[in-house]
């Protein structure tokens, strides 16, 4: 009995201390900055707009069909839905009453003016390295150039007690320590600029870096472990490995990368899934210098040992298919449903239909994207660089057995080589697609 009482007491005091520490972080861990920003400076506003594009704030803080930055997009977590908030300068429902310190603390430190901690669904762990000057510019832009919209924020659907926010302070203490941007060792100033964007505003790691059990990114920057940007699965899309290694980007040239980031396509590949949105809402607006910086930085990420190169095997597929030999498992299904666009040589049509031959998304370590895009189809982003954006139809009407054979064929055709895809993989993805989260606030859904 005594022991139980003691244990209870200990538990309660631990909880109290835990809460106390959490409640105090606004004062020592994430103190508020005191600084004046000239929000009327047109130059600052223009730069802020560009940076907000780079940060892709609009992607999360806008509901489909809704007013820009008025919030409402739901981000799914296993515990419930978190809605991005209204960040228009409306004083009642938005951030109109925020001074610079409030804004800075929310964006870089994940803390609301009322001391409430934000969920890491808001990528403050990445924004942490954004410079003061850039944060000021964004503040000026949001305060002066974004149209205020009166729209109440949507509460999360996370049930009590998981909805208590103070434990988030501990998450922040553990996984979002204050840090400044450290430029990587390089003589090329573009590499440093690229690192700054990739780690910070562009938050590529939020999707492309694997996450741990606590939803933390396993690396927030290149740290020699090879984990940064090494590929991660979200909502059944595999945001592929972006390191300069075999199944990553070693087969890409800098130029191909820049073209892809600006237009969502290049001669070999095309964006789909959430990457299509990233290009459409963010990357297409960046200058060539910044896109080149991003590309050069990614190409500078060292390969992990043994993964320096990717060599295709000999292509026997093109000759077989052109010669009418469709006997390989999966070949006839490919001929029937895919050749009209991706062609006998697996090269597609430049800038219209992506190639499957030599395309690193096809032979990626994880076939999720390949399976999902084939089942559900995909849309390229539309950008001013191209008069038309194309859509790949979905093939969910093919059986699991046919699709597994087909995927395995593609992953090992035309010189590609990668693991086989099984019927169970296809069935799992069907389930995932059927239970896809709906990214709408309830009122925006109708």
């Amino acid at each position: 009995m005594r022991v139980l009482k003691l244990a209870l007491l200990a538990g309660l005091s631990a909880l109290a201390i835990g809460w106390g520490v959490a409640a105090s972080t606004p004062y020592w861990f994430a103190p508020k900055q005191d600084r004046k920003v000239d929000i009327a400076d047109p130059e600052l506003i223009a730069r802020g707009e560009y940076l907000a594009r780079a940060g892709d704030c609009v992607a999360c803080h806008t509901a489909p069909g809704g007013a820009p930055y008025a919030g409402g997009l739901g981000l799914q977590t296993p515990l419930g839905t978190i809605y991005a908030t209204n960040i228009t300068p409306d004083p009642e429902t938005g951030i109109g009453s925020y001074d610079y310190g409030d804004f800075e603390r929310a964006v870089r430190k994940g803390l609301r003016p009322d001391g409430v901690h934000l969920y890491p669904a808001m990528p403050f762990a990445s924004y942490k390295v954004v410079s003061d000057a850039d944060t000021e510019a964004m503040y000026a832009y949001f305060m002066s150039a974004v149209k205020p919209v009166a729209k109440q924020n949507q509460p999360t659907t996370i049930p009590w007690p998981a909805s208590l926010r103070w434990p988030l302070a501990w998450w922040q203490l553990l996984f979002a320590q204050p840090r400044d941007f450290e430029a990587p060792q390089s003589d090329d100033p573009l590499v440093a600029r690229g690192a700054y964007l990739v780690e910070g505003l562009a938050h590529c790691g939020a999707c492309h870096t694997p996450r741990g059990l606590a939803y933390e990114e396993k690396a927030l920057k290149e740290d020699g472990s090879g984990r940064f940007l090494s590929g991660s699965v979200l909502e059944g899309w595999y945001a592929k490995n972006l390191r300069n290694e075999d199944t990553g980007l070693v087969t890409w040239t800098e130029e191909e990368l820049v073209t892809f980031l600006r237009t969502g396509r290049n001669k070999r590949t095309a964006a789909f899934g959430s990457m299509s949105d990233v290009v459409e809402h963010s990357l297409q607006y960046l200058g060539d210098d910044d896109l080149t910086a991003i590309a050069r930085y990614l190409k500078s990420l060292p390969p992990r040992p043994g993964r320096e190169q990717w060599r295709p095997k000999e292509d026997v597929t093109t000759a077989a298919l052109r010669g009418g030999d469709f006997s390989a498992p999966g070949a006839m299904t490919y001929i029937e449903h895919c050749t009209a666009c991706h062609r006998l040589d697996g090269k597609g049509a430049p800038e219209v239909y992506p190639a499957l031959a030599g395309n690193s998304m096809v032979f990626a370590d994880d076939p999720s994207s390949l399976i999902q895009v084939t089942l559900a189809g995909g849309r390229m982003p539309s950008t001013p660089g191209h008069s038309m954006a194309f859509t790949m139809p979905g093939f969910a009407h093919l059986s699991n057995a046919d699709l597994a054979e087909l995927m395995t064929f593609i992953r090992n055709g035309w010189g590609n080589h990668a693991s086989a895809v099984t019927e169970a993989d296809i069935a799992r993805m069907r389930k995932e697609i059927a239970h896809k989260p709906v990214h709408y606030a309830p009122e925006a859904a109708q």
Partner: protein
Amino acid sequence: MRKSFLIAGVALIAMAGSAAGWVATRAVPDAPPAASFAVLDAEKNEVGRYVVPADKDIFAQPNADEIIYGKRLLADTARLLPDNVGAAMNCNSCHLLDGKIDAANGYINTVNFYPRVMPRAGKEVDLETRINGCFQRSMNGRPLDREGREMKAMIAYMEWLRQGVAKEHRVDIVNAGPVDESLIPDPDNGKAIYAQKCAACHGVNGEGMRDQFGDIIFPPLWGDESFNIGAGLARTYKAAQFVKWAMPPAMHLDGQLGQGGVLTDQEAVDVSEYFTHMPRPDFAPKVNDWPNGNKPKDARY
């Protein structure tokens, strides 16, 4: 002691059994049942269902090699039959996806349609003649030997595609979807639409696009390598039917090619008027067409 072991054993087996049962009854998600079309008799009563067969079923046919050869000839005509093809065109350029798609010049009913009387010829034509018509007009080429291996293979493919639907019955699909033929075409608007919605694939000058081997990816829409003036597609409204329902591909998340349904009738008529009236090869035997009159209003000669 013994007894409790027994009970535990029975309980364990029961649990394992029900777990296995639960797993087995949970359906593994797979493809929905195949879509099918009604098979109609002469009075339009439904007498059965038709499912578009999968190409891999061909392997089970006694004449699989012949069918596959026919299928390849239809898809890769210019490469495999250079002596008979004058245009940079395959049969699949207009008969999309080996003639398996509704409203894109399918072959599903073709074998059952022939022989029949055609107004353009003014007499009864059989399937071989019809195919050779497309060789001479749409492909701007030379007819195939009616008894040759190539002709037989193409027809063997179409015969397989029919899936045994009786001669007097029809699968409920159309060769081409409807377009309002009373619309007056505006070729200037057609030119603008061409630039926005077609040129990305068919080329700024209608020249199409070829792959590394010189094979056709996107067929030309005009010029020396296009279909000649005697082709059905040289007629504005016939072309508009195709353009409206089958072009452009890769527009939607559904449909075998994500094709069609982007342009309004007016836009389809405008763009068709524009590209069909661009320069293209002549067709000398045109003088023999429509011997009994009844020339359609969009005929080119």
